[in-house]
C-alpha cells in the first residue's frame, strides 16, 4: 500500500518536474552548476576506482586463464568485456548512487526541512521543476561520459598492473583488448547508463523532496534513497539486459 503510494507520488512529482520551465535562463544557469557539482566532481573517484578494478580484474583473469589451452588474449578480452558490459555501467552506477544520490537527497531534503522549498513555492516558483529538472538533465547528460571514462581508465589499470606484476606482457594485453571487439556492447551500455542516470537523479530527489522532520530524517531519507536507487538500478539492468542483449 505504502509502496503504491510512493510510486504514485513519484510519478506525480515527475509530472511537476517536467512542466514548462518559467525562466529558461535561470534553469540553464542551474544546469551548468549541477553538471559541475554532480558530474565533474565525480571524475576523480571514477578514475581511481576504474584504475584499481581494471588492474585487479586483469590479475584475476590471468590467474583463472593460466592453463595454456586458453589463448592469452582472453585476459585482455575478459577485462574489456567486463568493463564494457557491467562494471563501468552498472557497478559504477551503484557507486554513483552512493555519492551523487545521497548528495541529492540531503541537499533537497535539507532545503525541505528548513522551509527553503516552501519559500520557493510562496514566491510562485515551481520548486520541483527548478530544483530537480536541472539535476536530472545534468546526471543523464554526464553519465555516458563517465561510462566511457571508466572503461578507458579500467583498461589503463589493466595495462599498468598486468605487466607490472608480471602476469601478462603489454603486447598480449593490448592484442586481447582489441580481440573480438563487439561495438554493440558500448551502445547497449550507453543506453543503460542513460536509464541509470535518470534513476540516480530522480529517485533520491523524490526521497529528499518529501522528507518530513529534521536533520535526522534527512539522514534516514538519504540511506533509504541509496538503497532504493540501488535496487532499481539492478532491476533496470536485469530488464534491459533481457530486452537488448538476448
Amino acid at each position, binding site marked *: 500500500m505504502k509502496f503504491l503510494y510512493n510510486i504514485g507520488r513519484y510519478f506525480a512529482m515527475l509530472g511537476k518536474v517536467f512542466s514548462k520551465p*518559467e*525562466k529558461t535562463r*535561470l534553469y540553464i544557469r542551474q544546469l551548468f552548476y549541477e553538471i559541475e557539482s554532480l558530474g565533474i566532481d565525480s571524475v576523480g573517484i571514477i578514475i581511481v576506482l576504474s584504475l584499481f578494478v581494471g588492474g585487479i580484474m586483469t590479475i584475476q583473469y590471468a590467474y583463472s586463464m593460466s592453463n595454456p589451452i586458453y589463448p592469452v588474449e582472453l585476459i585482455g578480452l575478459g577485462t574489456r568485456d567486463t568493463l564494457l558490459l557491467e562494471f563501468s555501467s552498472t557497478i559504477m552506477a551503484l557507486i554513483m548512487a552512493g555519492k551523487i544520490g545521497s548528495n541529492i537527497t540531503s541537499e533537497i531534503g*535539507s*532545503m525541505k526541512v*528548513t*522551509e*527553503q522549498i*516552501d*519559500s520557493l*513555492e*510562496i*514566491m*510562485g*516558483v515551481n520548486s520541483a521543476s527548478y530544483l530537480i529538472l536541472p539535476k536530472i538533465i545534468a546526471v543523464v547528460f554526464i553519465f555516458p561520459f563517465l561510462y566511457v571514462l571508466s572503461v578507458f581508465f579500467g583498461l589503463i589499470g589493466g595495462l599498468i598492473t598486468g605487466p607490472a606484476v608480471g602476469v601478462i606482457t603489454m603486447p598480449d594485453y593490448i592484442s586481447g583488448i582489441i580481440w573480438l571487439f563487439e561495438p554493440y556492447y558500448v551502445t547497449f551500455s550507453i543506453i543503460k547508463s542513460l536509464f541509470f542516470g535518470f534513476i540516480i537523479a530522480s529517485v533520491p530527489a523524490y526521497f529528499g523532496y518529501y522528507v518530513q522532520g529534521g536533520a535526522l530524517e534527512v539522514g534516514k531519507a538519504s540511506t533509504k534513497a541509496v538503497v532504493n536507487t540501488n535496487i532499481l538500478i539492478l532491476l533496470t539492468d536485469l530488464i534491459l539486459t533481457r530486452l537488448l542483449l538476448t
Partner: protein
Amino acid sequence: MIETRNISKSFGGQQVLKNVTTAFQKGKTNLIIGRSGSGKTVLLKCILGLHEVDEGEIFYDGRDFTKMNEKSRKKLRQEIGMVFQGGALFDSLTVEENVQFPLDFFTTQTPKEKEERVNFCLEHVNISNANNLYPSEISGGMQKRVAIARAIALNPRYLFCDEPNSGLDPETATVIDKLIQEITKEFNITTIINTHDMNSVIEIGESVLFISNGEKCWEGTKDEILKTNNKTLNEFIFANKLYAKLKESS
C-alpha cells in the same frame, strides 16, 4: 486586508484548525499568538495556500483565494513576502543573490536596476558589507534581516512572518519586531506575524488574535490583552511571571 471565514483544516483525522474567522488589517502588524502546536503555522500556511483548507474561504482584499486556480494564485503570490521561522535563505546563494532571487524570477529589470533594488532592501534592514557572504557565515539575527529584505524585494502588499524572532536574544528580537513594524507602516503592508513571544505582543501587537487548540479564542489589541478576563488567554500570558506582576501593578 486579509480575511478568513470559517476555515478548518485536518491532517489525517486530527483537526488542527476549527472554524477560524478573522481579519488582518492593512498597514498594521497583526499578531497571531498561541502555544506551540496550537496551529499558528498551519493557519498561516492555509492562508498562503501551502496547505489547502478543508472548509472556509480566504480573501485578499476581496479576492477569493480559495476559488483561484493555480495560475491566479501564482500571480497573487508575487504580491506576498514571507519570512520563515528559520529564515529559509537559500544556502547555496550569497546574501545578495538571495535578495535578488525573486527579482531574477519575476521581473525584467536590468542588472543595474536589480543591484539598486537589492541594496535598497538590504539598507532597509540595516545590513551592509555582507553582500557576498553565505547564510552560514552570518548570525541568526542577520539571517532574519536578510530574509526580511528578500521578502520585501518585490514590494509586497502582504507580508507573513512565522516566529520571526524565535532563536534570537531578547534585544535582537525587539529590533526585528520593530523593523517589521516600520516596514509595515512605511509601505502600508498587511502584515501577519506568528509568535508565542509576549514581548512581541507588548512591542508591536496592534491587533492580536489568540488561538488555542486551533480555535479563535480571543481577539483585541495589546492594551486590551493585559486587562482581559479570558481564562485561557490569561493562562497563556501569565505563564510568564513578569507579565503576572505587570498585570497586578496595572
